[in-house]
C-alpha cells in the first residue's frame, strides 16, 4: 500500500452516481488511483466516471497524463462536461 493519501472529488452528475462528494484514497499515481476506484465502485458507476467526456483535475489543473505522480494531500477531481453563463 502507498503512503500517499489523496482527496478524490466528484462533481455534479458524477457525485450523484458515486453517491458521495469525495473520498480519501491512497494512490501514488493517477493510474493507480483509477485502478483503486475500479476495485471499489460498481461497473455502471465506473463507466460514467471513466467516460471520454469526463476530465480529471489534479490540484485544480486539468491533467491528461495518467502516469502523473501524486503527492500526499493532492486533490484529484472528476469533472463532467462544464457549462456556465
Amino acid at each position, binding site marked *: 500500500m502507498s503512503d500517499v493519501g489523496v482527496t478524490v472529488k466528484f462533481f455534479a452528475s458524477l457525485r450523484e452516481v458515486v453517491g458521495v462528494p469525495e473520498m480519501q484514497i491512497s494512490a501514488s499515481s493517477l493510474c493507480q488511483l483509477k485502478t483503486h476506484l475500479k476495485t471499489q465502485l460498481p461497473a455502471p458507476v465506473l463507466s460514467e466516471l471513466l467516460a471520454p467526456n469526463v476530465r480529471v483535475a489534479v490540484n*485544480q489543473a486539468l491533467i491528461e497524463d495518467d502516469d502523473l505522480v501524486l503527492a500526499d494531500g493532492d486533490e484529484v477531481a472528476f469533472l463532467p462536461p462544464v457549462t456556465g453563463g
Partner: protein
Amino acid sequence: MTAQADSGDSRVVIQTADFSQDAVYQAMRKKLGAAVGAVVTFVGLVRERNAQAGSGEVVDTLTLEHYPGMTEASIARILEQAEARWPVLDCHVIHRVGTMRPAEQIVLVAVASAHRDAAFAAAEFVMDYLKTDAVFWKREVADGSAHWVESTDQDRQRADTWQQK
C-alpha cells in the same frame, strides 16, 4: 457563501446572492472617469422555458454548482484572453451558484472600453466561453424531473468561431 475569486482576480466573483448590474456599471464609471467611451453589460437570466427542456415543459429551478478556486481561475483565463485580444479598460464577471428560479439573474458580464466595437466583442466573447469553458454544472428541474444541462453544439460552434476571426 460570497467570496472573492480564489484565483486572486478581483474581477471575478462567484456568489449565491443576487447582484446589481448597476453597481458594477457605476463602479466602472467611477474608476475609469473620462477615459471610457463604451460600456456593455450582459445579464443572463433563468428562462421559464429552456430550449433544452422538452417542449411545453416549465422550468421549476436551475441549480448551479462550481468547484471553488478552479471555477474562478477558468473565468479569469477567459477575461485574460479577451484583454489580450481587444483594448479593454475594465471587465467584470459575477456568476451566481446555488438554486435559482425563472426570471432570476444568473450571470453578469460587464466590459468597458474606449470604443464600442471592443466592448461589444469582448463581452460576447466572454459570454460564449463562459458557456463552454467556465467550470460550472447546471441541474435543471422541469415539470418535477431533474436533468443536467450541458453546453450545446451551437455553444461550441460559437466559441470556435472566435478562433477563426
